[in-house]
Every structure is written in structure tokens, then in C-alpha cells.
């Protein structure tokens, strides 16, 4: 089984384009100012299609996490166990991710400060944020 590569859909093109440049971004509604993650076809508050992908700081903290020991996809088994993290970014949105360095998982705690880094996933053509613990 190969590692899945995210597939571009019409509303997330700019997200993947930003990722290639090493930039983590999220949609902000130009009508009601709502910010959200993951990409959605319309603003989840007012349903406007008038959004831009705003660059994010990538700074945040661990909201919660679990330690994955049995990945569903066998191609990840050699990396297990690894932390599956729910991060609250300073901009006030949350996203799911993993750690850049699994050594950070050893003493990981809810509330730990983390910083995003865009890394290639799947076939290497798409980039998603991973996080490093800020020590």
C-alpha cells in the first residue's frame, strides 16, 4: 500500500500552492472575517465563496494527542509508535498533524508550545504542516 497523496480540489488549490513554498495557510472570509482550517468550499459561518488563503505563523500549542501504535495503512508501520497531535494555533484555529521529530513525543504534554514546518507527504508533490516542540 502506498502513502496517500492529497488530491487537489477546486477550492484548495492555493493551499497546496502555498505549501510548495513552505507556507502554512488557512482561509479567511473577506465578507465576515472568519478564519478556518481545513480548507472548505465556502465560509462555514456565512457560506461566502469570497475567501483568501492567509499566511499563518505556524506557532501554537498541543491541544490534545494520541500515540498511534497501529497505523491503518501498513506503509506507516515502520514509523509507529508516533504522536498524532491536535494543535491550537495562536490565530485561534486547530489542526491535526504529527511531530517532525518523534523524540519530541517522549515527554509530550497538553499545552506544550510547538512550531510548524511544511514537509512533503505521499508522492512528495504536496506539503502539509508538521510540528516541532519549542524548548
Amino acid at each position, binding site marked *: 500500500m502506498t*502513502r496517500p497523496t492529497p*488530491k487537489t480540489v477546486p477550492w484548495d488549490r492555493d493551499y497546496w500552492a502555498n505549501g510548495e513554498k513552505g507556507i502554512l495557510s488557512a482561509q479567511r472570509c473577506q465578507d465576515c472575517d472568519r478564519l478556518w482550517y*481545513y480548507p472548505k468550499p465556502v465560509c462555514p459561518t456565512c457560506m461566502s465563496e469570497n475567501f483568501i488563503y492567509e499566511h499563518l505563523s505556524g506557532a501554537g500549542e498541543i491541544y490534545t494527542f494520541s*500515540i498511534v*501504535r497501529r497505523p491503518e495503512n501498513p506503509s506507516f508501520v515502520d514509523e509507529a509508535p*508516533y504522536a498524532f497531535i491536535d494543535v491550537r494555533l495562536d490565530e485561534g*484555529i486547530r489542526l491535526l498533524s504529527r511531530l517532525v521529530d518523534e523524540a519530541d513525543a517522549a515527554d509530550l504534554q497538553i499545552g506544550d508550545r510547538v512550531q510548524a514546518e511544511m514537509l512533503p507527504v505521499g508522492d512528495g508533490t504536496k506539503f502539509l504542516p508538521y510540528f516541532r516542540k519549542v524548548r
Partner: protein
Amino acid sequence: MTRAVIAGAAETTFSRKSEKADLQFMAEAIRLAMDDTGIPKSDINGIVFCANVLPDDSSYMAEHLGLAVNWTMKADYGGASSVMSIARAVEAIEAGRADVVVCVGGGNRADFTDLHHDAVSPPIDYAHRSFILPYGYGGPNSQFGMVQRLHMETYGTTLEQLGKVSVTFRKHAALNDNALLRDPMTIDDYINSPLIADPIRKLDCVMRCAGAIAVIVTSEEYAKKLAKPPIYIGTYAEKHSAGAQDQEPDRLLTGFIDIRDQLFEKTKREDLDFMQLYDDYPMAIIKQIEDLGFCDLGQGGKWVEENDFSLEGPLPINTSGGILSIGQPRLGGGYIPVIESIRQLRGEAGPRQIKDAKIGFVSGIGLMSYQTNLVITCGMMLGKEPFND
């Protein structure tokens, strides 16, 4: 207005391994439900399939079973599909679209893809597909692990409290010949079981199995001609995507918060003789106890610790062993709370019969959200006597 009721229900034998395909299991459950109710096949004119990975559309599946029906649909609501299928059948009957509706779910294990004419992967939504799977998804276990860790950290919920849920249900399962996990279990067994998605352990996780359950819904008028008395349906409510509009939804809140006042407006919590709650994880029980309003938010663990919810207690929960000890026959798993309610209300529960059971509550929960908790929550009152409107 026509009042819809449950005429009866049946389950196949559950097993860990089987060579049969989903439609064969569903057909067997339907045959058994026809036997339970005495309803002939020719009277069935509606069917709901709880199916999310079967390649065939619902009308084709009806055709494969030789059922010419006036109304059919697939229920694709994860673990909530079963209870929701009954709600949909009630709506169809009360609207006059059908008279006798079979609700069916189950099958073989989803990972046995060779049993289907075409392999269909489990349904993965856009968020999972592009924003979770590429990281190496640990399945629902990994998302429940996040919920459980946050609950333990925020409210001090303990492994002993979680373990009591599993141990209590296991005791009930010992009285159920069709439960796959009947060996006695201790809280230490729970705590010492191998970690799967910390803090989720092996004995937190529901076990997939093969089998199916069918429930037949019809009009009260039709049901009165049958040998066994009908089961009445009271208040029902459902919630999808709770928190979807919020910028920072709380991963510890479920949609039950939004529907609990409606659920317990006519039938009060203290009126219940039992509850059969969807239990894919002990944490799911603790969340339901608190979000359904049996205690304050965050106090579900404490409630479990302080209350006896076994067959001996004032409000028994999951009297047949729950899905945790019986096994999860695909989307038919959600009928386990329903069929046990029917047995209890009919007085057919044998060694685990609750004395004079008149009213019970069943719940359904389904799908894990990217940002919140459960995507779907629903609940339904079932009773021996008609509910007042």
C-alpha cells in the same frame, strides 16, 4: 394519523470469522425477523440498508433480495445508521409511503474485501482524505485517544472509571449466548491490556465481527394482527456536525448537548428502566452519560464510579453486554441497543431480564470529526405501552 411501531427484530449468530458476504448476512437477519414477527415477505414494501461500503445502490440490493418495494434507502450515518434507519422508517410509514419496512444492517468484516464483487474502500471524507490520511491515520482509535486524553487531563477521569464500564458490560455479556466476549474481565485486565492509540487500550476498542440484525417497523394497526405485541416509539432526535460552525469547537462536546432537552422533555430521565447506549469505547459511554445530562459536564467518570449501572442497579446500561462485549457487525452494530431493548420490553431477556421493564432509551453515535468529536448523535425512546403525544 398512522402510528409507527416496531413489530419485531432478529439477529444472526455473530462470529469472528465467516465466509459469507454482507448481503447473505442481511438476508438471513431479514428471514429471522420475518420468523420473529410472522410477517410474510410479500407484505414487506420498504427497506433500509445500513450500508456504507457495499457497491450496490439500495434499489439494486432490494432487487438482489427479491424485494419489490415502494420505498428504499441506504442509511450512511456510521454507527448511528441503525437507530436512524428506524427513525426514517417511522417517517415513511407515517407519511404513507410504505406499510412494512425492514431495517437491516450488518455483514462481514470490512477488511475482507474479497467477499464483494467490487472492492469499495471505507468512506473517507475530504478532511480525512487530504488532511489526516497522508500523516498515517491510526483510525477512529487515534481520534478517540485524543478525546480520552483530553477528558482525563481536563477532568481527572481515571482508567479505573473507564475500566468499570467495560467490566460491567462484560458481566452482562456472560448472560448473552450470542456475545463473542464472555470471559470474566477485571479492571486490572483493562488497564494492563496493550496500548493501541495511547491512552486507548485494546480493551477500549470494539471488536469487529460478522453477523447482521434486522428490525421490522410497521403501523400499529398492522402490528396488532401479529402474535407478539408491538414496541412503541417515543421521542426521537438527531444532530449532525455539532460545532461545525464554531471556530474552535470543543473536542469534548457531542451533539447530545443540543438535543438532550428535546429527548427528555416528555419522557424524563427518572422514567427510564434501562438505557442501551452505543458503546464503541468506554469513553463514549462516559461522554453520553454527561452530555445526555445525567451529571454535569466532565463528571461522567465520577458518575460511572459512584453509580451501579449493572443489572442490579437502578438504571442498568447495555444489558446484553454492549457492542464492546458482543462485537460490532458493521453498521448493524447500532441495532444491538435496539434489539436488546425489544427483548427487555417484551420480557424475553431471559437471565438478564430487568423486572417490569416498560421504557428504555437507545442511542446511536457515528463517525469521527476532524475538529470536534462525534459527527452524528441520535437517541430514541422505546416503550412497552404507547407514548402520549
